[in-house]
C-alpha cells in the first residue's frame, strides 16, 4: 500500500481551515502595528498578511520567501511581545506546509519538528505530526514515521480521517521495515474500517503478506477467500510474496505448506491484464485532467500529481512482475510437484497435463508431460500412463525424455500384457532413437513380447541380438534364458540344450538359473536323451532341493523311469513329487504339481492293473489334501473306475451318483462330466443287467426331482442331459431336448451340457446357437477335456461365415492341444482347406504335408492328405505335380477305394490338361475295370469324362 498525496485528501479540508485561521491570526493579531518602528518591518508584516492567500493559491514559493524573511524577525520580537509567539507558531506551520508542497521534504521535516517541539499544545500540533509523517514518507524514513505518529493514534482528539492517515503511514512504515507483527494492527484497522475500497483492499493484501511472513495460515485463510473475490488478489507484492514463501517451503521439503501458498497465487496472465487495465484507466484519467488544467485549478493539479504517482506505482509493479516472466507454467509444475509429494496423484497429473493443454509450445510442456506420465506410472494407473506416453511420443519424437518414456512405456505394456503394442513401440522407439540409451533393455522387452505372441523365431533372433550386441549387458543372462526357452518351444532340443547349458554355466544363481537348470533337463528329455535328462534333473535337485520346480523334476524322473518300465521306482518318484509340491506364500499347495504326480501314479498302477492301490491312492489323496483345492471329482472318477475293474460296478455307479449329486452343481467339476459319460453308457448298455438299469433310471428320476426342488440348475441340466442320452421315450427325448437347447441356459451349463447343446444345435442346423454355446465354452472352460467339440464346431462355423482368420486360430488350437490325436490331423486338413480359400496355397501344402510326417496317421488320413496336395497343385496349375500325387494314391492306397477312385479320375483330368488324352482315357478304363472302384460315386463322373475324350 503506497501512501500517496491523494491519501492526504482527507487532510485537504483541514488545511483549508488552518489557512483561514492563519489568515485571521496574521491579519488581526495585535502584532499588527504594535512596536513596529521601521518601514522594513512594516513592509514585512504587510507581505506576511498575504501569505495565507498565497498558500490558498498554491503560490508556495512566494509565500516561503516571505516566511523565510519574516519568521526570524517575528521570533526576535517574542521576548518583547509574548503575543508574537502565536503569530510565529502559525508562520512556522505555514512554512512547513509550503516546504512540503514544494517537495523540500528535509526542510519540511525540520520545520515541523521545530513546530511540534516549540508548540506541543498548539491547535495544529496533530496536523503537524501527520504532515511530518508525510515528509518522512517521501524520504522513506520509516523510523521517523514510527517516532512521529503513535501520538496521533493515541490522541483522543484525533479525527477519523487523521487517525486513518496515521494508521496508513504506520502500516507502511512497519511493513517496509518488515516488522510484520507491528504492521498487522494498523493494517487490520484499515481493512476493517476504511471506507475507501482502494485503501481497504490494499490493506488486506498487505495484511495477508504479514500473515504469510508470520506463517499464520489459519488467520490468513480467513482473509484470503474474501480477498479473492476482490481486486486485492491482484496485489503484485502479495502474489510474489506467496510465490517466494511457497518456494522456500518447497526447498525445505514441506509440500503441505508450499501447497497452502501456491494455491493462492493469481495466474500471471491475470495479474498482467490487471496491471494493463489499471494503467489504461489511470492514463485516460490523467489525459482528461491535463486537458482541463488551465491555471489556478489547485484540486485538479493535486489529482494529476496523484495519478502520476499511481502510474509510477503501476510501472514499478510492472517492473517487479517482469522479474518473474510468465510464472504460470512454472507454478503449475511446482503445484504438480507438491501434489505429487503429498501422493495426490490425480491433482498432480491434471496440473502437469494442463501445461501441455494450455501452452504446448512452452519449454516446460514436455517436462510436464513426462512428469504426468511418471505420476500415472507411480500411481499404478497403467492405462492412463500408457495414454500419456502415447501423447508424449506423438508430440515429442526424439525429445529430451524420449528414451526414458519409451523404456518405461515398453515395461508398462509388458505389464499390461499388450504384446503386439510392445513390439511396435520398441520398433518406433529405436527408429527415432537408434542410439537409445537402454537399447539392450528395449530389445529384451521386445523379444519377450514376441515370445508371448508365440513369435518364437523372432523372439529367438531378438534375444540373440541382446546377447551378441551387448555382451556386458545385465540383460544378457535373461535373454539367454528366453532364447533357450524359445528353442525348447520350437522343439529345437539341441539348441535349447546349448543355451540352457550356457545359462546354467554363466548365471551366478538367481531364479532364471534355477528355472533354466530344470528346463535343461526337459530339453534333454525332448531330445530323447533320457539318461542325460535324468542326470540333469538329479543334479538340479541336488542344487535346488527346495525349488518350486523340485516336484516337477521328481515327476519328470518318474516319467523317465516309467517309460523304462521301472514302475515301482517311478511310483516312488511320483510320491516324492507329491511330497515336494511347492507351498506358496499364501499357504496353498501347488495342486497342479500334486495332481500331476498323483494321477501319473494312478496311470502307472493302471498299467499293471493294480486297482486296489488306485483306490487306496485316491482315498489317501482325498484325505491328505482335503483342505486344499483338490480335484475331488476326477479322483472319485478314478476310484469308481477301479471299483468297476474289481467287479463292484454297483458300488462304483452309486459312488458316481453320490458324487454327481454332491458336486454336480459345480460347473467346473470336470470329473462329474466323465461320470456322466460312464453312467450314460451303463444306462444304455448294462449288458443285460436289467435290474441295475432300472435301478439307475429310478435314481436318475429321483435326483432330477431333488435338483428341481433345490434349484440346482447346473446339476439339473447335467441330469437332464443324462436323461436325454438314456431315455427310450421319444416324447420325453423331444421335451428334454427343448429344455437343453435354450440360449438362456448357456451361462449355467457345465461343459458336459454345453457339449450336448452344441451337438444338438448343430444337428438342427442352428449355427447361431452352436456358435454361442461354443464361444461360451471356450471362454469359460478352456481347461476342460471336452473342449475339442467346441474347437471343431466353432471352426466349422467360422469357415461357413468366411471368418477364416478366426477359423485358423481355432484349428491351430486343436493341433497345439492334441498334437497326436486323429482330430489334429483333421484340423491340419481343414487348415489346409482354409489356406486354399485364402489363396495361400503354400501354407496349405505345408499343412497337408505335415500329416504325412506322422506315422500314426498312416491309415485313411495319408491318402486323404495326398489327394488334397494334388488338388492344391492343380489349383496352382502345376498339373504335372498334381498328377504325381494322385498317382501315388491309386498306386499305394487301393484299399481306400473312395480316395483311390477320386485319385484315378483326377489323374485323368490332369493328363488331359497336360495334353495326354490317350493316357487319360487309359487311366479311366483301368479304374473302371476294378469293380470296387467302379462302384464308387465318382465313377459316374469318370464315365462321362471318358466319353468326352477324343
Amino acid at each position, binding site marked *: 500500500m503506497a501512501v500517496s498525496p491523494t491519501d492526504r485528501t482527507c487532510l485537504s479540508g483541514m488545511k483549508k481551515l488552518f489557512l483561514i485561521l492563519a489568515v485571521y491570526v496574521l491579519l488581526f493579531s495585535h502584532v499588527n502595528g504594535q512596536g513596529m518602528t521601521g518601514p522594513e518591518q512594516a513592509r514585512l508584516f504587510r507581505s506576511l498578511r498575504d501569505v495565507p492567500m498565497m498558500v490558498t493559491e498554491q503560490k508556495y514559493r512566494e509565500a516561503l520567501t516571505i516566511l523565510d524573511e519574516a519568521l526570524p524577525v517575528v521570533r526576535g520580537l517574542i521576548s518583547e511581545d509574548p503575543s508574537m509567539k502565536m503569530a510565529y507558531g502559525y508562520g512556522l506551520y505555514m512554512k512547513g506546509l509550503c516546504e512540503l508542497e514544494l517537495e523540500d521534504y528535509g526542510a519540511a521535516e525540520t520545520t515541523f519538528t521545530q513546530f511540534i517541539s516549540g508548540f506541543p499544545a498548539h491547535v495544529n500540533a496533530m496536523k503537524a505530526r501527520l504532515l511530518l509523517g508525510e515528509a518522512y514518507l517521501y524520504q522513506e524514513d520509516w523510523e521517523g514515521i514510527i517516532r512521529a505518529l503513535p501520538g496521533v493514534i493515541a490522541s483522543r482528539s484525533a479525527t477519523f480521517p487523521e487517525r486513518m492517515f496515521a494508521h496508513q503511514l504506520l502500516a507502511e512504515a512497519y511493513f517496509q521495515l518488515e516488522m510484520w507483527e507491528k504492521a498487522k494492527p494498523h493494517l487490520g484497522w484499515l481493512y476493517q474500517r476504511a471506507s475507501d475500497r482502494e485503501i481497504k483492499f490494499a490493506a488486506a493484501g498487505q495484511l495477508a503478506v504479514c500473515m504469510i511472513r508470520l506463517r499464520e495460515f489459519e488467520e490468513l485463510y*480467513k482473509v484470503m477467500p474474501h480477498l479473492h*473475490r476482490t481486486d486485492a488478489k491482484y496485489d503484485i507484492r502479495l502474489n510474489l510474496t506467496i510465490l517466494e514463501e511457497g518456494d522456500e517451503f518447497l526447498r525445505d521439503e514441506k509440500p*503441505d505448506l508450499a501447497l497452502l501458498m501456491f*494455491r493462492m497465487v493469481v495466474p500471471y496472465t491475470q495479474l498482467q491484464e490487471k496491471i494493463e487495465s489499471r494503467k489504461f484507466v489511470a492514463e485516460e484519467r490523467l489525459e482528461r485532467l491535463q486537458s482541463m488544467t488551465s491555471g489556478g485549478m489547485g484540486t485538479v493539479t493535486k489529482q494529476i500529481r496523484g495519478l502520476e504517482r499511481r502510474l509510477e506505482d503501476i510501472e514499478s509493479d510492472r517492473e517487479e512482475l517482469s522479474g518473474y516472466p510468465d510464472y504460470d507454467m512454472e507454478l503449475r509444475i511446482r503445484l504438480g510437484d507438491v501434489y505429487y509429494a*503429498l501422493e*495426490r496423484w*490425480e491433482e498432480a497429473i491434471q496440473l502437469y497435463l*494442463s501445461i501441455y493443454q494450455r501452452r504446448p509450445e512452452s519449454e516446460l510442456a514436455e517436462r510436464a508431460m513426462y512428469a504426468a506420465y511418471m505420476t500415472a506410472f507411480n500411481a499404478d494407473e497403467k492405462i492412463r500412463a500408457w495414454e500419456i506416453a502415447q501423447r508424449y511420443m506423438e508430440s515429442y519424437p526424439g525429445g529430451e525424455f524420449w528414451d526414458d518414456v519409451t523404456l518405461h512405456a515398453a515395461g508398462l505394456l509388458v505389464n499390461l500384457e499388450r504384446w503386439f503394442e510392445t513390439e511396435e513401440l520398441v520398433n518406433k522407439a529405436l527408429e527415432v532413437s537408434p542410439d537409445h540409451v537402454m537399447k539392450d533393455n528395449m530389445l529384451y522387452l521386445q523379444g519377450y513380447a514376441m515370445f508371448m505372441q508365440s513369435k518364437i523365431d523372432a523372439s529367438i533372433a531378438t534375444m540373440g541380438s541382446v546377447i551378441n550386441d551387448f555382451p556386458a549387458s545385465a540383460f544378457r543372462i535373461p535373454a539367454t534364458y528366453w532364447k533357450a526357452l524359445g528353442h525348447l518351444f520350437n522343439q529345437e532340443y539341441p539348441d535349447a540344450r546349448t543355451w540352457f547349458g550356457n545359462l546354467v554355466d554363466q548365471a551366478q544363481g538367481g531364479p532364471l538359473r534355477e528355472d533354466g537348470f530344470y528346463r535343461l533337463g526337459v530339453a534333454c528329455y525332448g531330445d530323447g536323451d533320457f539318461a542325460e535328462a535324468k542326470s540333469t534333473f538329479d543334479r538340479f535337485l541336488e542344487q535346488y532341493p527346495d525349488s518350486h520346480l523340485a516336484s516337477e523334476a521328481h515327476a519328470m524322473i518318474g516319467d523317465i523311469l516309467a517309460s523304462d518300465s521301472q514302475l515301482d521306482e517311478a511310483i516312488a518318484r511320483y510320491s516324492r513329487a507329491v511330497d515336494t509340491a511347492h507351498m506358496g506364500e499364501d499357504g496353498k499347495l501347488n495342486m497342479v504339481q500334486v495332481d500331476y504326480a498323483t494321477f501319473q501314479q494312478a496311470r502307472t498302477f493302471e498299467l499293471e492293473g493294480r486297482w486296489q492301490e488306485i483306490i487306496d491312492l485316491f482315498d489317501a489323496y482325498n484325505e491328505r489334501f482335503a483342505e486344499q483345492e483338490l480335484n475331488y471329482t476326477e479322483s472319485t472318477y478314478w476310484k469308481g473306475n477301479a471299483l468297476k475293474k474289481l467287479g463292484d460296478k454297483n458300488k462304483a455307479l452309486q459312488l458316481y451318483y453320490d458324487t454327481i449329486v454332491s458336486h454336480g452343481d459345480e460347473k467346473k467339476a470336470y470329473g462329474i462330466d466323465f461320470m456322466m459319460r460312464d453312467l450314460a453308457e451303463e444306462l444304455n448298455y448294462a449288458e443285460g443287467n436289467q435290474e441295475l438299469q432300472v435301478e439307475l433310471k429310478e435314481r436318475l428320476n429321483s435326483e432330477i426331482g431333488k435338483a428341481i426342488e433345490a434349484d440346482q440348475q447346473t446339476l439339473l441340466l447335467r441330469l437332464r442331459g443324462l436323461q436325454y442320452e438314456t431315455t427310450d421315450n421319444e416324447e420325453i427325448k423331444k421335451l428334454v431336448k427343448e429344455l437343453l437347447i435354450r440360449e438362456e441356459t448357456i451361462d449355467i451349463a457345465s461343459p458336459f451340457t454345453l457339449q450336448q447343446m452344441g451337438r444338438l444345435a448343430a444337428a438342427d442346423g442352428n449355427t447361431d446357437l452352436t456358435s454361442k454355446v461354443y464361444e461360451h465354452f471356450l471362454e469359460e472352460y478352456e481347461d476342460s477335456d471336452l473342449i475339442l467339440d467346441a474347437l471343431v464346431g466353432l471352426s466349422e462355423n467360422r469357415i461357413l461365415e468366411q471368418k477364416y482368420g478366426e477359423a485358423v486360430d481355432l484349428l491351430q488350437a486343436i493341433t497345439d492341444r492334441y498334437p497326436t490325436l486323429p482330430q489334429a490331423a483333421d484340423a491340419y486338413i481343414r487348415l489346409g482347406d482354409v489356406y486354399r480359400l485364402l489363396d495361400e496355397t503354400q501354407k496349405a501344402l505345408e499343412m497337408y504335408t505335415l500329416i504325412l510326417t506322422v506315422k500314426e496317421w498312416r491309415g485313411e488320413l495319408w491318402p486323404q492328405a495326398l489327394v488334397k496336395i494334388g488338388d492344391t497343385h492343380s489349383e496352382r496349375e502345376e498339373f504335372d505335380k498334381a498328377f504325381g500325387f494322385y498317382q501315388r494314391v491309386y498306386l499305394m492306397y487301393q484299399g481306400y477305394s473312395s480316395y483311390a477312385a477320386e485319385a484315378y479320375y483326377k489323374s485323368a483330368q490332369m493328363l488331359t490338361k497336360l495334353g495326354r488324352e490317350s493316357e487319360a482315357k487309359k487311366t479311366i478304363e483301368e479304374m473302371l475295370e476294378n469293380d470296387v472302384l467302379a462302384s464308387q460315386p465318382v465313377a459316374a463322373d469318370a464315365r462321362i469324362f471318358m466319353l468326352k475324350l477324343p
Partner: protein
Amino acid sequence: MMNVKKLPLFLLGSVMLSALMPVQAQRLRAKVLLNSQDVLDVVLIAPRKAGTTNIRYELVDKEGVLTLSLNDVEEIRFDLKEFKPDVVSQLYYMGKYEDVIKSLARRVNPYLGFVDKKSNSNELIQLFVRSLYKSEKYEPMTLFANEIEKYAATGEMREFADIYRGLAYLKLGDLEGFKPYEELFKEADYKHPFAAPIWYGKARQEIVKNNWKDANTYLAKIITEFPMETDWSAEALFLSATYHHSRTNLVVANQICQEIQIVAPLTDWPEKAIELEETIRTQAEEIGITLVEFGGLREREREEGDSKIDYRERQRKLKEEEAERLRQELDNAEENPL
C-alpha cells in the same frame, strides 16, 4: 424447451414461495449504456413483462415516463448499494445461505426482467439461486430458475439456470430427472464461466453411479483450477477425502481433512472434515498407520497444551462472530437503505 420434472414437495422451503410472488411496480435507479456510447442516468420501472423487449423508464431529474427497447441496451449498472453485495457475498461464502436468502428474497425479483442483458444485478440473482441450491431448497430454486428462463431463453443466465436445475436432480440422485440437462454437463474448458459447477455435476453423476474413481478426476479439476472458490473447492476437497478414505488411503484422506480446516475456515466443511478426521484417526490407530500432519494444524494445537480451546468450538465461535457482524451490517443497510 427442456421438460422440467417436478421435484419432491417435501423439499419446498416455506420462505421461498413468497419470494416468487408477483411484485408491485418498482423504480430502479440505474446507469444504462446504449449502443456502446451513450450513458443514460435513469430510473427503470420494473417488472418488465415477460416476452417483451420494452421497459418503461424516467430520466433522472426530468418528468415523464418514456419507453426504452432493451434491444438497444448494452449494459445496465443498477445502484445496488442497498443490497450490500460484498456482505451478502461474504455470507454466502461462509455457508450462511439462509441469511443470503432472507436478504435477497423478493428484493431481487424486480431485477429478473433484466437477466437477458449484461447487468450487475445478475450476480445477485445468481447468488440467490446458488444459496437456494446450497441450502437444498430445490423446489423453490427450480421455480426461480424457471422465472429466469422466462426472460432469458438463451444466453449465460439461461445456461446458469439450467445447470443449477440439473445439479438439483443430481443431488437428489435422480438421473432420470437430470437427463434433460445432461448435454450441458459435457466436458467444460477451465475458461467456461460455469466450469466449477459443471465439473462438480460430472463428479456427482459419477458418485450417483458409485463410480468414485472417475468422480475424483472431476473433483481434482475443481481443486486445482479453482482452489480459492471455496463454495466448490471446499466440498470437492471433502468428497476427495471421502474417496481416499473409502480406499483406505488414510494418510492422504487425513491430510485433505486438515487442509479443509485451514483453507476454508469460514465454510461449513471444516466441521465435517473434523468428524471424518476423527474416524480416520481411530482407524489408523487400529491398523497401525502413522498419519502425516498437514500445515502443522495439530502441532500448533498440541503446543497450546492445557490452555487450548476445543478446535471445533473455536472455529464455530469465530465463524458465528463473523456472521453476526455481517448480519448487523445487512440489517443496518436495510434499515437505512441510502
